[in-house]
């Protein structure tokens, strides 16, 4: 892995006596998409708040490109873009005005507002007030806002939540492009398939603690089971044979199943991230 862009070391935070985050550590490299997965109340939002400087960790340290988040918030904020779960845009201002305002806060003299709006397919609605935008349009504008300062680190909290498939795909493509350009992306999502498709690595968080940090592939190999379902006609009736693929004798078992009749279909299956999450934490997402 390249040298980490985000380095999180044993951070903790409690709301009163309720521990929200309990000594978690992880790092994210340049150009990496890091999926941060967990159910509601697992500690994702608190972690993101600490990463973005909204909360100060009660213990531990966070550094972004070598800057400690605590005490260097101005330098750190210049490096990051945040897309919040809430659609916290100014509804009485247009899409262009919203972006222009945030560009001003970053001190950007000549922001390429239209270029950014074109990336999220909103350039033809730039002058419209956000109050007239659909949910998908607002979400795309949120992503554009997070990119206004061309950040080196991107925090995306449920960026495709509740979007139509076209809008969701636009955003996924954008995330891939930004990662390819070298931006480190921390992504929280409930969509396991999305996390699987987008993330280079994922972290499972539950009750404030990390249960696993690895690539989706490795997690599936280590903790999941793969099967092949063979559907065949045997003696005039249709039957299904499920063959586990992780056993040492799985090749022989599959040959036997295939040879026992007229094969109609063969489906291979692997465990989903959700299955593995449930297996590891005992909770559903």
């Amino acid at each position: 892995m390249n040298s980490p862009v985000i380095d999180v070391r044993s951070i903790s935070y409690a709301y009163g006596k309720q521990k929200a985050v309990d000594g978690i550590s992880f790092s994210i490299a340049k150009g990496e998409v890091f999926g941060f997965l967990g159910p509601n109340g697992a500690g994702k939002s608190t972690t993101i708040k600490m990463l973005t400087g909204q909360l100060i960790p009660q213990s531990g340290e966070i550094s972004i490109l070598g800057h400690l988040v605590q005490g260097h918030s101005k330098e750190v904020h210049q490096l990051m873009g945040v897309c919040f779960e809430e659609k916290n845009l100014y509804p009485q201002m247009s899409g262009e005005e919203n972006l222009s305002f945030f560009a001003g806060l970053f001190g950007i003299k000549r922001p390429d507002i239209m270029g950014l709006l074109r990336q999220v397919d909103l350039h033809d609605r730039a002058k419209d007030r956000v109050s007239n935008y659909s949910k998908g349009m607002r979400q795309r504008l949120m992503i554009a806002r997070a990119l206004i300062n061309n950040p080196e680190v991107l925090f995306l909290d449920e960026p495709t939540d509740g979007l139509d498939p076209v809008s969701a795909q636009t955003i996924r493509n954008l995330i891939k492009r930004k990662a390819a350009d070298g931006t480190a992306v921390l992504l929280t999502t409930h969509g396991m398939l999305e996390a699987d498709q987008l993330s280079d690595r994922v972290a499972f968080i539950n009750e404030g603690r990390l249960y696993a940090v690895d690539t989706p592939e490795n997690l599936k190999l280590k903790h999941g089971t793969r099967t092949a379902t063979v559907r065949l006609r045997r003696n005039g009736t249709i039957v299904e044979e499920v063959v586990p693929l992780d056993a040492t004798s799985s090749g022989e078992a599959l040959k036997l199943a295939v040879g026992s009749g007229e094969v109609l279909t063969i489906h291979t299956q692997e465990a989903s991230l959700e299955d593995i999450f449930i297996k590891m934490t005992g909770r559903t997402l």
Partner: protein
Amino acid sequence: MGILAVLLKKDFIQFSRGRIYAVLSAVGLALFIAVFWIIPDTVTESVAIGIVHHDLDAMVAMIEGEQGLELVPFADEQALEKVISGELVLWRKADGTLTELASKEKPKDMEKVPLVAGIAFPPDFLRLAATGQAPEVQVYINDDTPQEIRSVLPAMIREISFAAAGIPLAITEPDTDSVMLGVDLYGAQISLRERMRPMLAFFVLMMETFALSSLIAMEISQKTVTAVLATPAKVWQVLLAKTIFGAFLAMFQAVVLLVAIQAFTATNWLLLLLVCLLGSLMFSSVAMLVGSWGKDFLENLFLVMIFIIPLLIPAIAVLFPGASPAWIRFIPSSGVMQVLMEVTAYGTGFVEVLPMLGISVLWTLVLITLGLLVLKRKVVRL
């Protein structure tokens, strides 16, 4: 453009796009200016007091010479008592003849004489006063007798007694727990329009409290402030921008109004600007408190009312001059209102209003600190 300027520009766009605030501000301002110019600029201050006396003609004539006082002679103390108690009504014909009638219907060619009080001197008043004894003077008042007239009556009796016998009567002034807001208007009455001038300025300063509090509440409920704080903008910059914007909004409109109603003079403009600044900061801090606590339009409106109604009391007290309870002085807006009154109505200078100005500065500091602390706490906990 600095972060502060960017935040201020955004606040201005939001305010101007909120049609209800912009329209209410413009209409309110125009209405206040119109009200000021419609109200008559004349003073008709005459007080009629009934009097029963026997040999005090010279003294009564001397007192009656005072501006705005009419002493209506009664031959019969009982008739005077009945007029004051409302049993009879006193009417005057065009030739000046007075008649007491039981009917309250207005007789043809007669005008009602509104007596506010009555004084009945005993027949042997002069003798008793001259020999140092205590004559019994009856004073008749009713529920409608203004407080200031009630307090003037003993002084009037004392003056007549002194003029008649050369000996002051042993009259003890009643204990009062009251304070005069503004100056004693005796002999220097100002018109209702003049009195409206500071009150309207005060109303305009107060008017933007709801608009600013709504903007703050919206920023909190929509969590847009969280997005702002994920940029290089600091909490103090956000708070300072809100303070500046709120104060500017209120002060700008107050200045427009004061110009339109011709309140500025070559000598008072700096003092007026200063007191407007204090008032606008005071109401901005109220808006911060309300904006931090209010969650929606109705809650905001309710909270604004809770804060604004007590702060309005000094303005209303000044509009109706007379004795006001002493506790009015402890209302935070009292100092601002008094300075506005003194400066716009009586042309009082800086030195004379300095104590009131000092109290206003202290109250403003207290409220603005409180408002900023509450808003900061709310913002960082989102």
